């Protein structure tokens, strides 16, 4: 029996009834990774033997009557999460040989919930990119079309789920890095509220926006996993200590009377017209389910990308200072002196996009530029946050596209750096404002997936997942699969 593409909810049921074992699930996942990965390049580290040991332990627990919903389900982590004894590279030459002596809180929590981690997923270097092409391991491919990108930075995670390697992969989202690849690969990805999930052990990019979340086939699966991921962590002072609701329990609530705001600025010239049609149809589906659709305005939408590209590089420039070749990570050969050690270790260890952002961030934080750039950007960030909060006083969720286009071609040299940055024009607002947001499959354009994005109120994950689940009850876009003909 093929277990590929089955949801966590189904697999969990099959494990409970004894129809399958965790060992079978892990064996099948490993076989699929072995078969597909040479071409997809979604997985950068696979630890099959340890996973099988853990699967046998999960099966033993099931045999003793333990039936927590995630027990024995195989998964992969984005290679940004520290895993004790397992390589954690962040997609960078700088950390290519780094093996952490400790686990990220997310890693520890999902293990405690019984999930079996098989290894690590490809990603843009230090999560800086929207195409997965900045990875030191090379580009990951989109399972729907091997000549196209899976999106980024959590591109490997999205491709691994979309190609049926595993039913769940973790991702992180600083400016759209869960939602944009989820959209481009036709899966469901949730970026929780800033502070809902611990950042401890998740390698920092821009600390005021970084947030971890689940990437899976459905909102229901994301809910099951968020139940285990979310919650206070004494090791992360920005992690909220409000109680975590059971996100699974509210999935079936009717959405009649739900107020959905559609920002007119999201349907601007940036948006591909065919993608716009798919999103419009999806919003009509919410209306048929009983929601009220209202046009709203987020006037500063066009400022979000520039604001982000001042703040995020500034935070990154400080966060990435620790990679200096002194204690761990990449060190250049035969340094002449200390300056040479710093200079060449960082020059050789970081890729072009990471260096660009370190330089921009260092510049905007310098005394001469601080007021002109960093302070201004912080002010605009507050303005954007207020606009979102005001709209969310009038409506329950904001709906629109997750990305302006479907998956674009690999090595597209016609795409400038700023074109690439515009990939995140619709996702960045939720990061600047710290709001939860989800992307779910809403249709296909020329055989490529389109993602519907919904943004909710702070700590409103339950409502977002509820609406997404109701949408998925009425549509089958989340059950569409790539043929993977080019791989087989």
């Amino acid at each position, binding site marked *: 029996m093929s277990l590929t593409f089955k949801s966590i909810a189904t697999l969990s049921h099959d494990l409970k009834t004894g129809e399958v074992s965790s060992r079978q699930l892990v064996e099948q996942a490993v076989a699929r990774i072995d078969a597909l990965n040479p071409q997809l390049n979604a997985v950068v580290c696979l630890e099959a033997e340890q996973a099988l040991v853990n699967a046998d332990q999960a099966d033993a627990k099931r045999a003793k009557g333990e039936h927590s919903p995630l027990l024995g389900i195989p998964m992969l982590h984005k290679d940004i999460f520290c895993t004790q004894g397992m390589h954690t590279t962040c997609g960078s030459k700088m950390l290519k040989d780094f093996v952490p002596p400790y686990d990220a809180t997310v890693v520890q929590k999902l293990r405690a919930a019984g999930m079996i981690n098989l290894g690590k997923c490809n990603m843009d270097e230090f999560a800086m990119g929207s195409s997965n092409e900045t990875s030191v391991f090379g580009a990951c491919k989109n399972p729907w079309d091997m000549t196209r990108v899976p999106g980024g930075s959590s591109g490997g995670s999205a491709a691994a789920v979309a190609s049926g390697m595993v039913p769940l992969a973790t991702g992180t989202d600083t400016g759209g890095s869960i939602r944009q690849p989820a959209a481009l690969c036709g899966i469901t990805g949730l970026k929780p509220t800033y502070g809902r999930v611990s950042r401890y052990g998740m390698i920092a990019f821009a600390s005021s926006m970084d947030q971890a979340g689940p990437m899976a086939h459905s909102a229901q699966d994301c809910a099951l996993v968020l139940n285990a991921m979310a919650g206070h962590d004494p090791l992360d002072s920005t992690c909220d200590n409000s109680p975590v609701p059971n996100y699974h329990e509210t999935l079936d609530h009717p959405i009649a009377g739900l107020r959905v705001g559609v920002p007119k600025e999201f349907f601007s010239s940036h948006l591909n017209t065919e993608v716009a049609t798919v999103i419009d149809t999806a919003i009509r589906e919410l209306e048929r389910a009983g929601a009220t659709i209202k046009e709203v305005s987020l006037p500063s939408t066009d400022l979000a990308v520039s604001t982000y590209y001042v703040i995020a590089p500034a935070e990154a420039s400080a966060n990435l200072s*620790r990679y200096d070749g002194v204690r761990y990570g990449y060190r250049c050969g035969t340094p002449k002196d200390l300056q040479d050690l710093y200079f060449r270790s960082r020059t050789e260890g970081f890729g072009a996009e990471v260096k660009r952002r370190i330089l921009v961030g260092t510049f905007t934080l310098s005394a001469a530029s601080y007021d002109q750039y960093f302070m201004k950007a912080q002010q605009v960030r507050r303005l954007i946050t207020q606009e979102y909060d005001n709209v969310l006083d009038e409506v329950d969720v904001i709906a629109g596209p997750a990305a302006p286009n479907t998956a674009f071609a690999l090595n597209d040299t016609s795409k400038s750096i700023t074109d690439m940055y515009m990939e995140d024009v619709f996702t960045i607002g939720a990061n600047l404002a710290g709001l939860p947001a989800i992307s779910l499959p809403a249709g296909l354009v020329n055989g490529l997936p389109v993602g519907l994005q919904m943004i909710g109120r702070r700590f409103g994950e339950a409502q977002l997942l509820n609406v997404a689940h109701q949408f998925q009850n009425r549509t089958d876009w989340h059950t569409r699969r790539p043929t993977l003909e080019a791989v087989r």
Partner: protein
Amino acid sequence: MHWEMVMGLEVHLQLATHSKIFSSSSTQFGAEVNTHTNPLDMALPGTLPVLNHEAVTQAIVFGLGVGAEIGKISRFDRKNYFYPDLPKGYQI
């Protein structure tokens, strides 16, 4: 020309806490080298500082004891530079 001399004193005082100000490592004197450390102290990727509650309490008690004004908000600025004794590449 008349010059007026203005001087300030930067006084460092170690508070008698059991652990460090941003990490749970012990502050006890005289232990084996490299034992009072943890992933945060070593600036390993992914680690985050957690402010020691007791250090804040003692600092406020000290401030009140010497008749100082207690600020309602404290903030840290980062000073970024590379130096071998600076594992995170910045000080606050």
